[in-house]
């Protein structure tokens, strides 16, 4: 460090207030070279306002230095970690009896759905099939895709896939993709929460119930029909166009495009969530259709659906409750989240 050349020999140079302020952190930290330290000290001896500023600086530094002593103890987190690791590595199907996955979009939505055992018959749907999902579950139709009826879905080998808006190949890739793996369950304190990833459960359940179409042939698989709902259609567009091995539904936010994507964040999240929600929604219906004996499921299940796609961590807490009156089952779904 060169000697301070601005001063006369043996005398520290006079520093201006600005000089001193620029050095205050170094001074407080004790990292200032000795010669400069003396000059700062000289200035402080005569300058009231710099002295005050330095005092504040020092108390801030002291506060910061002492802060780490007040961090609440972490405890040993290994048990929780291994539990979650195991939960991730286990197929979602094993989470117990007929798994019902819900997702909802709007914060504070209380949705009430009337569901009959013969849910899949069109007689239950007063309007066009597409509107049924939106209305009965209180989801905004502008966000959720139109829902082909399950009758319609059963009519052709690939129709069920199309009801999900996915081809088999896309489902394969989705199940294998990091994107889905990234949707990790999150245990929530105190309340009983099943560690569930709605999308994974929906798709795995779907596979388990219906399997692949018998004549599944990847190269001949027809494309999924165009979906009319803007958001979800957009979300799925990339999936349909994608013929490569990676990212079927990846609303990808790679590191390099992070900033850009963050700007577009809300839309990406909406699309992603819309997809998850609609998959979960259909899994729910499929469950009711196929597992009428499993009803009622009045166990007040509540989930955290956490969408952790590279930096977006959103929690939607959903509680469900089922009322049975004769043939009718009323499902109350309460969603309390940040609405994405």
């Amino acid at each position, binding site marked *: 460090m060169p000697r301070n050349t601005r001063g006369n020999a043996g005398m520290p140079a006079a520093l201006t207030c600005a000089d001193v302020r620029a050095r205050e952190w170094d001074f407080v930290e004790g990292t200032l070279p000795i010669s400069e330290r003396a000059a700062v000290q000289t200035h402080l001896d005569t300058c009231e306002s710099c002295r005050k500023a330095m005092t504040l600086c020092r108390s*801030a530094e002291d506060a910061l230095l002492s802060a780490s002593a007040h961090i609440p103890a972490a405890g040993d987190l290994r048990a929780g970690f291994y539990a979650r690791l195991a939960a991730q590595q286990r197929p979602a199907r094993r989470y117990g009896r007929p798994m019902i996955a819900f997702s909802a979009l709007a914060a504070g939505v209380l949705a009430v759905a009337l569901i009959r055992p013969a849910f899949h018959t069109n007689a239950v749907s007063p309007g066009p099939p597409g509107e049924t999902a939106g209305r009965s579950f209180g989801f905004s139709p502008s966000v959720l895709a139109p829902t082909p009826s399950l009758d319609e879905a059963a009519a052709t080998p690939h129709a069920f896939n199309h009801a999900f808006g996915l081809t088999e190949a896309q489902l394969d890739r989705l199940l294998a993709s990091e994107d889905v793996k990234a949707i990790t369950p999150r245990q929530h304190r105190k309340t009983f929460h099943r560690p569930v990833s709605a999308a994974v459960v929906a798709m795995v359940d779907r596979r388990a119930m219906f399997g692949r179409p018998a004549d599944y042939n990847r190269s001949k698989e027809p494309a999924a029909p165009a979906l009319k709902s803007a958001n979800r259609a957009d979300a799925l567009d990339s999936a349909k166009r994608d013929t490569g091995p990676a990212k079927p539904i990846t609303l990808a936010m790679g590191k390099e495009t992070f900033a850009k994507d963050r700007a577009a964040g809300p839309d990406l999240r909406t699309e992603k969530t819309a997809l998850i929600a609609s998959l979960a929604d259909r899994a729910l219906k499929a469950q009711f259709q196929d597992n009428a004996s499993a009803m009622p499921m009045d166990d007040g299940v509540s989930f955290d659906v956490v969408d952790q796609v590279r930096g977006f961590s959103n929690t939607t807490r959903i509680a469900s409750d089922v009322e049975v009156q004769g043939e009718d089952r009323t499902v109350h779904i309460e969603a309390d989240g940040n609405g994405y």
Partner: protein
Amino acid sequence: MNGERTVTTDDDSRLVARFLQGDASAFDALFLKYQDYVYNILYGIIGSAEEARDLTQDVFLQVYKSLGGFRQGARFATWLYRIAVNRGVDAARGSRRWRFLPLLDDPTVLGRAAPPEGEPEYAFERSMEKEAVQTVLMRCPVAGRDILVLRYYQGLSVEEIAETVGCTVAAAKVRLHRARQTFKENYIATYGVDASEGRQIGTADAAKHTR
């Protein structure tokens, strides 16, 4: 601190190598060794012990999955801290807790409402003395908070901070300086004159801080 780390770095890469060869106990050792560090970073950035614990597990899950891509020769600790910082910053930005973050002039900041039910340790933390810094820290922009946490909670040098956040040493210095200034302003805004009361900068005081 530097000497200490040089020794452990070697240890770490051996543990990483062992884990990659399928030795689960090696990962356990890494977890045990670093969980507090990761947790401290996350706590500093997030400000909630509960969530920090949760995110610590997230970070290790991520590490568990991506350790294969860890470049041998890089320092494990740096790599880990970087993941933790990114995770914390992302969570702080995306978290719905944003809603509960008080504004600077919010009168409820100091007379904070009742602690969440059934969390006595939380209530304990709430006492002003202990909360002070974290409260102020939570008002600083996330971009500076991470630097302050690395510096003061983690005790990293400027060089280590630069390596962790992936910038030059000069840039780290600038960011640290800026973050401290912001912290100081928020600190004063929160605690006002009290912050400096009863303290005078004098020769004796200054000498005490000469290291």
